[in-house]
């Protein structure tokens, strides 16, 4: 920071031709320092996670050495990851999407309908993804072209879509026992060397999304739009389109998440997805993506999801009754926010 304020710009241009050959160098000469600086937010999240796990482990060392504990988390964690990651894009873009739980429910309902009608689950997945895409497009268009506050408008859409599901199904769930024998199940939801395969897909998704965020035009434009939409518009970026795209991405993520959730226990409930609203939101922010837009971290968000997933498990494993879960949820959220606050500068 110190040098930033007294730049070496005293010599006006033209006089500097003698120095033109010089090369850029990273502010830190040591690669490790550079790495830490570039990934402060996600490393901060990792630190929170490690401290939390350390506390739980000290409370009960034996449970935390059992693989089953981890494998059980790895079964449900992927469902959250498929929505947390696109939400990092949405928040980076300066918006928020609270309609993903209903989208999860809607898309997985379509999946359930297709499978129940006797079609191949792969077709069901495709149909679910198409549904998620359309719903994301619908929500995004309403927010972006309608010029509405995404916080409230997506909350409204969540009610509206869930209401539609309820009206049509009148509360009936759908059980899909036939799924267990399908190829889709083996590929997406079985175990491999004792590891739930879901997590491989989720990791692949996180890696893909992290690349999309950091190494793709889409990510670059999402960040710029969230940072300074006026500037982005002047530079020829279709700001509205980019905004709609992040909602579509969330719709797709929610569709995959919903489908994975149904494949875990072969049942679709009309409430499917509802339980994910708060944990997923908390994950994004525990993960170190700030609310003001422009910056964020996909990997941090993923670590945030892991952290949030382990709160409940850890509380129970540490031998506390479930009454402590809410308390710890709140505590971790507050501590993470304080940590990131101290860790992150906001430029204007």
């Amino acid at each position, binding site marked *: 920071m110190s040098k930033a304020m007294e730049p070496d710009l005293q010599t006006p241009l033209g006089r500097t031709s003698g120095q033109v050959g010089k090369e850029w160098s990273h502010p830190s000469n040591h690669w490790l320092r550079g790495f830490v600086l570039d990934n402060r937010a996600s490393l901060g999240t990792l630190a929170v996670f490690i401290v939390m796990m350390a506390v739980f482990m000290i409370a009960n060392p034996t449970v935390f050495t059992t693989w089953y504990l981890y*494998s059980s988390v790895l079964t449900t964690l992927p469902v959250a990851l498929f929505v947390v990651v696109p939400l990092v894009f949405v928040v980076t873009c300066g918006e928020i999407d609270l309609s993903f739980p209903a989208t999860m429910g809607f898309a997985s309902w379509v999946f359930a309908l297709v499978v129940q009608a006797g079609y191949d689950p792969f077709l069901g997945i495709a149909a679910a993804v198409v549904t998620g895409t359309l719903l994301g497009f619908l929500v995004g268009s309403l927010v972006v072209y309608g010029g509405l506050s995404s916080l409230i408008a997506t909350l409204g859409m969540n009610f509206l879509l869930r209401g539609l599901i309820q009206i049509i199904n009148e509360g009936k769930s759908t059980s899909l026992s036939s799924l267990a024998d399908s190829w889709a199940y083996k590929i997406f939801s079985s175990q491999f060397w004792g590891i739930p395969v879901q997590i491989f897909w989720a990791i692949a998704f996180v890696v893909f999304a992290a690349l999309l965020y950091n190494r793709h035009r889409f990510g670059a434009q999402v960040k710029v739009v969230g940072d300074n939409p006026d500037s982005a518009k002047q530079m020829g970026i279709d700001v509205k389109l980019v905004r709609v795209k992040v909602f579509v991405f969330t719709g797709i993520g929610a569709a995959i998440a919903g489908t994975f*959730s149904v494949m*875990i*226990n072969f049942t679709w409930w009309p409430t499917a997805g*509802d*339980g994910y609203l*708060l944990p997923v939101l908390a994950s994004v922010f525990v993960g170190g993506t700030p609310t003001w837009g422009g910056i964020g971290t996909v990997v941090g968000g993923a670590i945030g999801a892991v952290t949030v997933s382990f709160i409940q498990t850890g509380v129970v*494993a540490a031998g506390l009754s*479930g009454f402590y879960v809410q308390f710890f949820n709140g505590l971790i959220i507050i501590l993470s926010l304080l940590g990131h606050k101290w860790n992150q500068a906001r430029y204007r």
Partner: protein
Amino acid sequence: LDAQWCKDVHIRFFVGGAEGDAFGTIVYNGAKQAAADLGPKVDYIFSQWDVEKMVQQLREAVAVKPQGIAMMGHPGDAAIMPLAEQAHKDGIKMMYQNVPVPTVVAAFGGGYVGAQQEQQGRALGAEAFKLAGLKAGDKAIMIGPFENESRGARERGTVAALKEAGVDVVQINSQTEWAADPNLAIPPITAALLNNPGVKAVGYPGGQMLGNVATYMQAAGRKPGDIFNFGFDTSPQIVEAFKGGWVQLTADQQPFMQGYLPILSLCQQVVLGLAPMNVDTGAGFVTPQNYEIVSELAKQALR
């Protein structure tokens, strides 16, 4: 009596839970069947199990002066009392479901359809103790909505019965999200099993979670029969779990009846002037020996 002898009667029916939870759906179907058979006009009310909301909904129900109201007993005697008094004044017939409200019924009348929560819970505890072959000093886990006194009364009863038999019971408070998506409970249940390695039996609060037992056990690396899983309600998923040997016992509180009977009784009270019904629906236990009887009904969300 005509086929639709109750045709001109207006009834408000409290389904209770969230739209679409396993228990509420069957209650709803029972009530709808009654409405179809008897002909009354029925308004269905959902409350997400939020007691404050239930009281307000009851207040509004009393205000529109239907001939009968079938109310959930969850808010408890104190909260229901003034409204029951108002209903009594206005000549509205009352039925209560799921949680008994003895003081209110004593003061202003009304019937009750549902298990006697506490008793049913205790009965389940005793039955589980017997069937699982538990001994004093054994360990069991009981999951339940202990954060809500009246909703958790049943599970508290089970805990009490087991404790009295000398079983060491670990209580896990269920989270509201688990009702919307029981998969969310996979890791905590695994953790609880790992934390209490000697556990012989696990009890679950309602249909949604009990139906998911196979997933929980697989996640924790347990095989069918390793652990005695028991709980409340029936559903297609629970029938499947019986088939697979994952679930050993469920106390069927016959939610269909909890939907059907209050409406029948209200019709009888309004049209025929009969006294209110008092039915304990918590009679039956479903075990691996008799689960097939309920399987077809469960599939149609009737039991």
